[in-house]
C-alpha cells in the first residue's frame, strides 16, 4: 500500500446538476461514484406547499448526494470540478464533506487499499 490517502468525498448537490456533474467527473478521471436521493435543509428556508388551503413551510428540499472515493485524483481537482458545475451562486448549492478512508476493497477481486479504486483497466 502506498502512502497516498484514500478520500471519500460526499457532495450534496442540486438534483438537476447530476447529469452535468457525472459528465464532468469523467473528464477528470474519476472512476466511479455512488448516488443517492436525500432531503436537505440548510440556509435555504425551503419553500411553501399548499394543500387545501393550508400553507405548509417545507424545509426539507430534495437533494442528491454523490459519494466519490478517490485515490489517484487529487482532492482539490475534484472539489474544483464539483464547484465548477454545481455553483449557481444561490443559496442551496450544497456542501462537500470530505473524510479519510481507512481502506477500500474491491469485492470482485479482493484488492485492498488505493488499488481498489483505480479502475481504468478492466
Amino acid at each position, binding site marked *: 500500500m502506498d502512502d497516498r490517502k484514500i478520500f471519500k468525498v460526499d457532495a450534496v448537490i442540486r438534483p438537476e446538476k447530476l447529469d452535468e456533474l457525472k459528465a464532468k467527473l469523467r473528464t477528470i478521471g474519476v472512476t466511479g461514484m455512488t448516488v443517492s436521493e436525500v432531503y436537505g435543509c440548510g440556509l435555504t428556508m425551503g419553500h411553501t406547499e399548499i*394543500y387545501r388551503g393550508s400553507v405548509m413551510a417545507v424545509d426539507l428540499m430534495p437533494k442528491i448526494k454523490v459519494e466519490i472515493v478517490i485515490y489517484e485524483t487529487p482532492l482539490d481537482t475534484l472539489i474544483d470540478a464539483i464547484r465548477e458545475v454545481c455553483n449557481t451562486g444561490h443559496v442551496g448549492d450544497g456542501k462537500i464533506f470530505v473524510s479519510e478512508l481507512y481502506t477500500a476493497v474491491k469485492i470482485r477481486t479482493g484488492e485492498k487499499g488505493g488499488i481498489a479504486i483505480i479502475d481504468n483497466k478492466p
Partner: protein
Amino acid sequence: MKLSILFPGTLAWALALPAAALAADDTAQELSAGDISYMCVATLLVLIMTPALGFFYGGLVRRKNTINTIMMSMVCLALITVQWFLFGYSLSFGPDAGGIIGNLDWAFFNGVGLEAFKDYSPTIPHVLFAMFQLAFAILTPAIVSGGIVERTRFPAYCLFVVLWGTLVYDPMAHMVWGLGGFIRDMGALDFAGGTVIHITSGFSALTAAVLIGARKGYGSLTLRPHNMPYVCLGGSFLWLGWFGFNSGAAVGATALTALALANTGIASCTAGLVWILLDRMVHGKMTTLGLMTGFVAGLVGITPAAGFVTVGSAFLIGITTPVICFFFVSYVKGRLGYDDSLDAFGCHGVGGVWGALMTGVLATKSVNDAGADGWLYGNAAQMIPQLTGIVTGIVLAVVMTAVIIKGLGLFMQVRATDAEEAQGLDLIDHGERAYNKM
C-alpha cells in the same frame, strides 16, 4: 341420493327464496332493455366510486397509512353488501314501519326478484334497483372514514361501518326515499342523495373526528399527502362514477337521465374552476388538490338537485358551492381545531347542506314533472321539507355516530395508541406495507 341429506337445513332458505324465483319471461314485457342497460352501468359506476374514494383518501395520507386508508373504503364493499343482503335493503326500502324505517320482510332479498317493482323501478328488475341502492349504501360510510383516518383501529372501524349503516344510513334512506318515509311524504326533494349520503356522512365524520380526537402532531407536523397522483386517480374515478350516481337516480335511460348527467358535468367542472381561481387569488397558485376538491364540492352540491334544475341552475350551484366549502376548509376548520383529516365534513357536510338548500330554491317542474317548484319559482314552502330533511339528517348522524363510537369504546380499542400511530396502521392493522423496496 337425496342431496338434502348432505346440506341439511342451512340451505333451506336459499331454496325457498322467492327472491329471484320468478322466471324472467313473465315480466319481460314491462322491462326496458335500454333502462336495464343503463341501470346496470350506473350501478357499476357507483360501485367503482368506493375504491376510487379509497385512492383519493389513500393519496392524501402519509405512506404508513396508505393501505389502511384504502381498506377503510374497500372493506365497506364487503361489509355493507352482506348487511344489505341480510337486512339492510329491507330496513331501507322494505315495507314501512312508522315512516322511519322499513321492516324485515325483505331480509335476504326475500321477494326482491327479477320483475319490476312499480313504485321504485317500473322498468327494471327489482333486484337491480336493490343493487343500485346498495352501491350508495356502501359509499356513504366510506366517506365518513375521511374524518378519522390515520388513527382509528381497523376492527373497531369495521363494526362502526356495519352499525352506522344500520342505524344511520338505512333509516335515513327510508325516510327520504322509502315508500312511506316521512320526509319523502313531506315532499322533500333529494334527487341522488344529498341528504341521505352527504349530510349524514359529513356530519358523522365531524362527530367521529371530534370524539376520536386529532392525529398526534396535528397542527404542528407536516401532514402532507404522500401521493398526489393517487389523489388525481381516485378523484377522477370518483368524479366519473358520480355521473352514474346522479343520472342513475333517474332509474332508467330517459331525458331526465341526460339532464342529470349534463347538470353533473357542468356543476362539477365549474366548481373545479372556481376552486383553482380562489386558490390563485388567496394563495397565488392553482393547486391540483384544489381542482379535485372543487370537483367534489360541485358534485356534492349538485347531487340533490341534478334531476330537478336547469343547466343554468347547475352552473350556479357549480359557482357557489366551492366558494362556501373553500371558506370552510380554509378558515373555519383551522379556527375550530377539529381534525377532519380529509375534509369529509368540509366537502360533504357543508356542501351537502348547501346543495339541499339550493335544490329547494332552484327546483323547477319545467324540467321534471315529478319534482316541485322551488323558492325562486314562487314556491317558498319547498324550503320546509328541505330543512326538515337537513335537520333530521344532521341530528340522526351526530347522535347515532356519538352513540356508536362511545358504545364501541366500552368494550374495544377504537383509537390507536401513540406507538401504533407512530408505526402506522398498515403494519399494525393489516400486517402489510404499501410499498416494499427491499
